[in-house]
């Protein structure tokens, strides 16, 4: 699993490549929390993520709940069908702001 962070001073685009499971979820969580602590909005690019387990879903939903507090905005984007199906199975799809691409999410949050 690899994590790449890009974006601007106000918005982080965090691209996650590979699997997010019990072993890799803590690294994803740490990286996302760092961006939020730095006062940035979050775009989580899942286009290169091929698997998300319950541990990965927990990391994302924990942040999404914090985002509801209004301190930062969060978007997920680029989900592969297999990952989207896991979100659907978990009943999580409607709990997130999901966009087709990172470009669309960034454009929305910087408009």
């Amino acid at each position: 699993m690899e994590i790449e962070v890009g974006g601007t001073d106000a918005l982080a685009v965090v691209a996650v490549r590979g699997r997010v499971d019990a072993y890799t979820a803590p690294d994803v969580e740490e990286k996302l929390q760092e961006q939020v602590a730095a006062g940035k909005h979050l775009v989580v690019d899942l286009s290169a993520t091929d698997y998300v387990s319950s541990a990965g879903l927990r990391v994302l939903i924990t942040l999404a709940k914090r985002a509801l507090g209004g301190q930062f905005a969060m978007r997920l984007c680029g989900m592969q069908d297999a990952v989207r199906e896991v979100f659907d199975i978990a009943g999580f799809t409607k709990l997130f702001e999901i966009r087709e691409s990172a470009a669309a999410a960034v454009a929305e949050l910087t408009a």
Partner: protein
Amino acid sequence: MKARFWGVRGSIPTPLPSEQIEHKIVRALLGAGDVDLTDEAAVRAYVASLPVHERGCWGGNTTCVQVTSDAGDTIIIDAGSGLRGLGDAMLDSQFGRGEGYAAMLFTHTHWDHIQGLPFFRPFYVKGNRFDIFARHEDIHGRLKYQHDFRFFPVGMEVMAAEKNFHLMPDELHLFDDRMQVTAIALDHPGVAYAYRIEADGHAFVMASDAEYRELSGEYWDKYVNFYRGADVLVFDAQYTLREALVEKQNWGHSSAMIGIDLATEAGVGTIVMVHHEPSYDDDKIKRIFDDSLRYLDRMPSTVRPTVLVGYEGLMLEL
């Protein structure tokens, strides 16, 4: 070793309402096709071919599981309302003659895990003997409290069987060491304990009731290690993942998806989903089960557990 499930419902006994029975009958008749409904043998064969939740139900009795060694030694785990049926069945054996001996383990003492005890008929037969274990202090006091006259008319002292109550040690050796039991604390209001029973070269783990507050790291690993290599893991799957992580966080229960992750990582042979949510009908429980199989299909691991919905009457041979 064998395991039989006498109660699989969570929280409160949940009798099947008449409208659900009617719904099942209608659906079965509509699906009968060219079955000759005037031929009893043909009808019975057709009914027997239907899935468990369509020809009957998953079950409404609360937690009770019977684990039996090849030598016939019996451990009863929890005394939910399912214990009543087990007790009645036991009367056909030496327990009916006052010559029986069994061990009992309590995961915890919430009502749905003790409410069957006053109706456990082998307790009323003089001569039967029971060793009763829990990791909680004063299991005798807790169970006796349920028999206070304000709550039940028959005091525990009236139950003539010999009952010895014990604080369970870290390692419990039963039946001349033919069965060994270890425990691990589970996150649940008031604390519950999972039990790992080893006998006849197999391992059976009962892990109800439990919420998993972390799904990674040391917290996660301690459960993976406790469940590792078990032939059967009985798992608290009361909630959907959304309920477990969002809507009912801190309520003390888990979901099938978390169970599948744990079982896969621990190399468990079969995971049995139990402690079904009482507000869910049989179709909803089936849908959650089907979703969990879809989740299992998405897993990258090539070694996957068998996934079962626990139901009353389910018998597993380890």
